[in-house]
């Protein structure tokens, strides 16, 4: 056995056994973050906090929720909302939190795209982040089913039906996923399991991996400047805090983050207490009915853009049905962001406004995503269907054109 001296303090006692002093150094006080950043760099901490809120409110909801088609609706809308003390608060935190987590994820993603934080050594940060986006999407979808209202049911129906488009095994796959020929009790219970256990576990694992992926390439900065972190850290530790380009994660960076977090929490709880309705669709306060489709089905706002890509192709092109084209486009839309680091052929790591061609691409993409989101909510009739088609095509064309645009940019700036 290793030899232990008698400890003089509690800290020393723990340090002998767990190496806490070194651990805190590595994880906090000597984990270096660039100085040249702005409030958009606080989104990661915001997301961590929001995820914690979702877990805690979810634990409280879990104590009264019943994953059974005969009991689910009342356990949410009667027991939790009316009987349980502060049950409404936990439901509103959970519903608003789920919506706002996607808002912050999108800000986080587009900050990364704008500042070029996905390339030149930062590919794994980007890929693990996209993996988190997919896991959060699955988490959002599975959770949306649980209140067992009309929107829950039909969203579940339509989204599971999508798998029927996969060649050869499609029809059997849909029955397998649902555990029945239609969305039923077995479907609800297995999605409940996914929502409260398997997906949260996967998300926690992916978050740890995402943080780990940041360690070697380090956090990007506002100018995309490359510098030697060890050298800058030495300057900081030697007392030249002003001359150094970095600050420690704790206490300097986090104290700034907490400032942003303070404002964000005011906004978040304003929504939770006074403006929660946007996250609670009125149609979902009717109990699920498998024999009555609501007049108009739409997903929550954060899925509208990809939903619009799915239904943008409503007619046959070259003998391929509109349904298959929509499915292919939908699959591409959800996967294409993963390979962004390799579609961008320009070596420039700069904010988009300093990149001669990329800036146009970036803002075109923003506008197109907004158009897709707006039209995703509208009924797909008449001119709306054509706007949907045009904006879906634009989305695909933008990504197909990105390698050429960035290649031309690389040529123009001469490998800078």
């Amino acid at each position, binding site marked *: 056995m290793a030899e232990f001296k008698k400890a003089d303090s509690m800290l020393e006692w723990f340090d002998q056994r767990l190496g806490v002093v070194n651990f805190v150094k590595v994880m906090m006080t000597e984990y270096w973050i660039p100085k040249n950043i702005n409030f958009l760099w606080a989104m990661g901490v915001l997301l961590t906090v929001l995820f914690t809120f979702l877990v805690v409110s979810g634990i409280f909801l879990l104590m009264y929720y019943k994953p059974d088609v005969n009991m689910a609706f009342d356990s949410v809308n009667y027991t939790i909302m009316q009987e349980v003390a502060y049950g409404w608060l936990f439901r509103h935190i959970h519903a608003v939190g789920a919506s706002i987590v996607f808002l912050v994820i999108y800000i986080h993603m587009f900050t990364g795209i704008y500042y070029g934080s996905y390339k030149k050594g930062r590919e794994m940060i980007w890929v693990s982040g996209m993996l988190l986006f997919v896991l959060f999407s699955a988490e959002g979808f599975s959770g949306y089913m649980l209140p067992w209202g009309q929107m829950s049911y039909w969203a579940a129906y339509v989204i599971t039906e999508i798998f029927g488009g996969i060649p050869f095994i499609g029809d059997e796959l849909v029955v397998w996923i649902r*555990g*029945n020929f*239609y969305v039923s009790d077995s479907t609800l219970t297995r999605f409940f399991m996914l929502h409260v256990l398997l997906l949260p576990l996967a998300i926690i694992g992916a978050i740890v991996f995402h943080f780990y992926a940041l360690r070697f390439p380090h956090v990007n900065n506002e100018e995309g400047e490359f510098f030697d972190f060890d050298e800058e850290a030495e300057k900081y530790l030697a007392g030249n805090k002003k001359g150094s380009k970095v600050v420690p994660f704790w206490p300097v960076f986090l104290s700034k983050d907490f400032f942003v977090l303070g404002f964000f929490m005011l906004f978040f709880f304003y929504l939770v207490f006074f403006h929660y309705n946007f996250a609670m669709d009125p149609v979902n306060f009717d109990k699920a009915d498998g*024999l009555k489709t609501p007049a108009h089905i739409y997903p929550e706002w954060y899925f509208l853009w990809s939903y619009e890509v799915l239904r943008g192709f409503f007619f046959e092109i070259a003998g391929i*049905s509109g349904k*298959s084209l929509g499915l292919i486009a939908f699959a591409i839309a959800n996967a294409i962001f993963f390979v962004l680091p390799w579609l961008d052929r320009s070596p420039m790591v700069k904010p988009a406004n300093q990149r001669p061609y990329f800036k146009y691409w970036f803002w075109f993409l923003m506008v197109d995503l907004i158009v897709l989101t707006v039209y995703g909510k509208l009924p797909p*009739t008449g001119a709306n269907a054509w706007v949907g088609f045009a904006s879906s095509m634009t989305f695909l064309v933008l990504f197909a054109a990105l390698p050429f645009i960035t290649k031309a940019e690389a040529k123009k700036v001469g490998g800078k």
Partner: protein
Amino acid sequence: MMDESRRGFIGKAFGAVAAVGGIASLIAMKKTWDPLPSVMSAGFTTVDVSGLEANKLEIAVWRGKPVFILKYTEDMKPTDGRNVKIGDHYFSVMIGLCTHLGCIPAYRADQHDFKCACHGGEFTDAGVHKFGPPPRPLDIPPFKLDGVTLVLGEEGPEYKAMMAKAGGA
């Protein structure tokens, strides 16, 4: 050449046993998610069509899915391979789920057609898609005629004849 030592052999033996166990557990996990026997066997619905009114949609439920039963009026023309004659009348019998993404289309009696509110698909009175994203006509459920009674879930000669005409689908 592979590692021939005792440790190498034990490693390979362990790997082989673990692989068999792993595959076996994957099969078990897959089957756990299959529909239960009670779900598979609850598969038959009978409908008496003698009392139905012409041009008024009757919706039966079979395996949790709505089944459209539409009795034709004298002036509605049957579509080859899509309608079944029961007594003196033609009928449409089809699963009432849009073949796009599974919403339930509504019947418009004055226009003798179906309209899906979700993504705007339209079908004729025989369930043939005529507008919008649906890729194929409404599916026809397996049925059997027993006089004026329709048994959903069993394949009768009329159903088999219709399927043969539709190209064995």
